[in-house]
C-alpha cells in the first residue's frame, strides 16, 4: 500500500479518517499539493477553492475532536462539475456567458455534500453547457487525458474524469445527459454512474435538456462510486421530477459483488461494426469473466436503437434551445452591447450577448433546436423523435423481461486526439451512440474500466444498464467484474497509467 494519500480509494480515506490515522486537513492539503503539481498540464479544474476547502476540512477535524457524530464520508474531499451551482464559488458551465458568475445558492447535491462534511476542492472543466464529448468545447480550453496528454478525457465531464485519473481528487460529481459521466469514465480508466432519472436532485444544476439530465457519482472504484451515490441520492421536494423513494441499496450491492444466477443481456445493436477491435475484445473478455462468476448470458435485440442517436440530436437541441433562452443578458451573466447601435433594444442586446457569449457548438444546437420546434417542421422532427423515444423505451422493457442487466462497450473507441473530431460535429456525436439510449428511457447506467486496447494501450470501458430504480444491480455486477479484473491485472488499471510530469520535479521524457 502506498503512502501517497492521493492514490488511496475514497473508502480507505474515510476509514483512515474515522480511525484518526489521518486528518481531513492533511488529506485535503495532499490533494491541493497534487493539483499544484499536475493541473498545469492536465487542466481538470476551472477553479480551485484553496481557502474554502481547507476551512471545511478543519471544521471536520474539529468536529471529530469533539467526538461529534460524523457521516462516514466526512473529510473525504471532492471535485464538482462546473454545471452545478455552488454558493460563493464561480459556476461557469465552461461558457463565456457565465464568466465570473457566483451563484447565490447551492444545488441540493452540494448541500448534501456539505452536510456529509465533504470538503469541495473546486469546480471541474466541461464542454460548454455540457455539449460535447471531449471538453474541446469549453470556453476555457480543453482538459487533457492523463493517459496521454495529447488526447481527450471525454466529455462533457472531462474535468471530472481527468481529475480522478490524475489523482487530483478521489471523488467527483458529474452530469449525464447523453453519456457525459460514462464516456469520460470509459476513456480515462475510471468509474461513473448515471443514476435512474430522478434519482439525484436536479435542483441547482444548470439545465441542458431537462428530460435527459441526471447528476451522478464519479470515482476510481465501484465501491467509491456507490459511497458517493448514497450521499447525493434521494428525494428532493425542490425537484418535482425527483423520485419519492429511498436511495437504492447501492453500497450493500457493491460490497456483495454477487452475480450468481444473474441474467446478463448483451445488446446486439451495441457492439461489432463501428467498435474498435481492442474495445470489443476487452468487452468480450469481461462478459466471459461474469459468466465465470456465476452469471448467465443472453443476447437481446433492440431494433430501434438504430434511431436513438437521431432522436437524441433532435430532443436535446429542442430542450436546450428552450432552456438556454434564460441567458438573455438581463438577470445574470454577460451583457454585451451591439457595435454601432445607439440606444440598443433589449432584443439587440440579447442577440449581441449570445453572439459573443456562446461558442460554436452551443449556437449550432440552439439553432437546430429552434428549427426542430418551428411550425411546419415540428411533427417531422421533434414529434417524430418523441415517438422514437417511446420505441426505445419499449425495446428496453422487452429486453429486461429476459435479462436483469444489459451490457455493452461504453464508447465505440478509446480516447481520440485533441482536434481530431472538432470540425466534424457528426463524428463527435457518434461517441455517445451506446450511452444515449439510457438517457432517452431514463434508466440507470454505469461505466467501469475493462482494460487497455491492445492496439493503442488506452483504457476501454464496460457499460452496465439496469431497469429504472434498480441502480443497485449496476453495483453488484460492476463490483463483481472489477474484482475479477483487478485480480487478473494484479492491481487497479490506473496503476498502469504513465506517471505525470510534476511542476518542480525534473522529469526526463
Amino acid at each position: 500500500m502506498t503512502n501517497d494519500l492521493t492514490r488511496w480509494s475514497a473508502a480507505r480515506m474515510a476509514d483512515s479518517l474515522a480511525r484518526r490515522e489521518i486528518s481531513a486537513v492533511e488529506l485535503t492539503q495532499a490533494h491541493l499539493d497534487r493539483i499544484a503539481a499536475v493541473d498545469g498540464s492536465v487542466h481538470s479544474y476551472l477553479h480551485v477553492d484553496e481557502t474554502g476547502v481547507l476551512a471545511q476540512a478543519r471544521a471536520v477535524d474539529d468536529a471529530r475532536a469533539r467526538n461529534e457524530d460524523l457521516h462516514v464520508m466526512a473529510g473525504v474531499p471532492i471535485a464538482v462539475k462546473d454545471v452545478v451551482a455552488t454558493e460563493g464559488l464561480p459556476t461557469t458551465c465552461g461558457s463565456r456567458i457565465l464568466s465570473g458568475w457566483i451563484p447565490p445558492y447551492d444545488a441540493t447535491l452540494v448541500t448534501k455534500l456539505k452536510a456529509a462534511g465533504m470538503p469541495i476542492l473546486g469546480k471541474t472543466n466541461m464542454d460548454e453547457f455540457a455539449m460535447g464529448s471531449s471538453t474541446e468545447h469549453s470556453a476555457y480550453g480543453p482538459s487533457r487525458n492523463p493517459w496521454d496528454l495529447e488526447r481527450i478525457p471525454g466529455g462533457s465531464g472531462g474535468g471530472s474524469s481527468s481529475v480522478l485519473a490524475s489523482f487530483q481528487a478521489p471523488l467527483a460529481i458529474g452530469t449525464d445527459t447523453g453519456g457525459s459521466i460514462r464516456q469520460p469514465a470509459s476513456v480515462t480508466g475510471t468509474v461513473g454512474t448515471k443514476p435512474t432519472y430522478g434519482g439525484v436532485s436536479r435542483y441547482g444544476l444548470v439545465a441542458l435538456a431537462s428530460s435527459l439530465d441526471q447528476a451522478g457519482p464519479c470515482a476510481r472504484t465501484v465501491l467509491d462510486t456507490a459511497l458517493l451515490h448514497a450521499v447525493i441520492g434521494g428525494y428532493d421536494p425542490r425537484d418535482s421530477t425527483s423520485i419519492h423513494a429511498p436511495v437504492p441499496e447501492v453500497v450493500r450491492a457493491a460490497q456483495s459483488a454477487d452475480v450468481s444466477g444473474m441474467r446478463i443481456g448483451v445488446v446486439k445493436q451495441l457492439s461489432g461494426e463501428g467498435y474498435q477491435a481492442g474495445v470489443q475484445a476487452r468487452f468480450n473478455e469481461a462478459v466471459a469473466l461474469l459468466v465465470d462468476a456465476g452469471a448467465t448470458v443472453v443476447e437481446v435485440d433492440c431494433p430501434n436503437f438504430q434511431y436513438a442517436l437521431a432522436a437524441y440530436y433532435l430532443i436535446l437541441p429542442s430542450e436546450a434551445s428552450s432552456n438556454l433562452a434564460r441567458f438573455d443578458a438581463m438577470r445574470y451573466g454577460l451583457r454585451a452591447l451591439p457595435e454601432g447601435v445607439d440606444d440598443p433594444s433589449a432584443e439587440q442586446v440579447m442577440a449581441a450577448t449570445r453572439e459573443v457569449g456562446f461558442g460554436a457548438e452551443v449556437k449550432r444546437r440552439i439553432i437546430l433546436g429552434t428549427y426542430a420546434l418551428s411550425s411546419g417542421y415540428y411533427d417531422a422532427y421533434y414529434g417524430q423523435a418523441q415517438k422514437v423515444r417511446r420505441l426505445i423505451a419499449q425495446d428496453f422493457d422487452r429486453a429486461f423481461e429476459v435479462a436483469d442487466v444489459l451490457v455493452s462497450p461504453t464508447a465505440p473507441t478509446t480516447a481520440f486526439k485533441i482536434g481530431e473530431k472538432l470540425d466534424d460535429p457528426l463524428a463527435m456525436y457518434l461517441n455517445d451512440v451506446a450511452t444515449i439510449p439510457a438517457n432517452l428511457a431514463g434508466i440507470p447506467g454505469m461505466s467501469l474500466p475493462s482494460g487497455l486496447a491492445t492496439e493503442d494501450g488506452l483504457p476501454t470501458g464496460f457499460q452496465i444498464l439496469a431497469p429504472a430504480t434498480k441502480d443497485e444491480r449496476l453495483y453488484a455486477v460492476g463490483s463483481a467484474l472489477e474484482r475479477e479484473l483487478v485480480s487478473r491485472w494484479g492491481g487497479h488499471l490506473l496503476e498502469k497509467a504513465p506517471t505525470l510530469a510534476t511542476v518542480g520535479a525534473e522529469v526526463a521524457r
Partner: protein
Amino acid sequence: MSSLSRDDVAHLAMLARIELTDAELDRMLGELSVILDAVALVQQAPTEGVEPMSHPLPLVNVTRPDEVRPGLTSAQALSGAPEADQQRFSVPRILSDD
C-alpha cells in the same frame, strides 16, 4: 436532403436571438444541413400508432403545501445582474420611441 437556405438559417438565428457574422452563417448552413440529413432518420422509424414520449417518468402534477419557505433576498437575486437599480434588474429599452 434538407432544403435549408441561408435565409432560413438567418431567420432561425433571429428567432433564437443569436447574432451571426456572415462567415458563421455560411459555416452554420453547411453543418446544419449535414446534421439535419442525419437526424431525418427518425422519419424512417416504424412509429405508426406510437404515442410520443416527452419524459422518462409518468408524472402527474406535483404539488406542495402552500406554505412560505425561505427564498433568495433581493440582494442575492440581484447579485449576478449586469445592472441593477433600486432593488430591480435594470434592462435596455423594450419598446422603441417611434
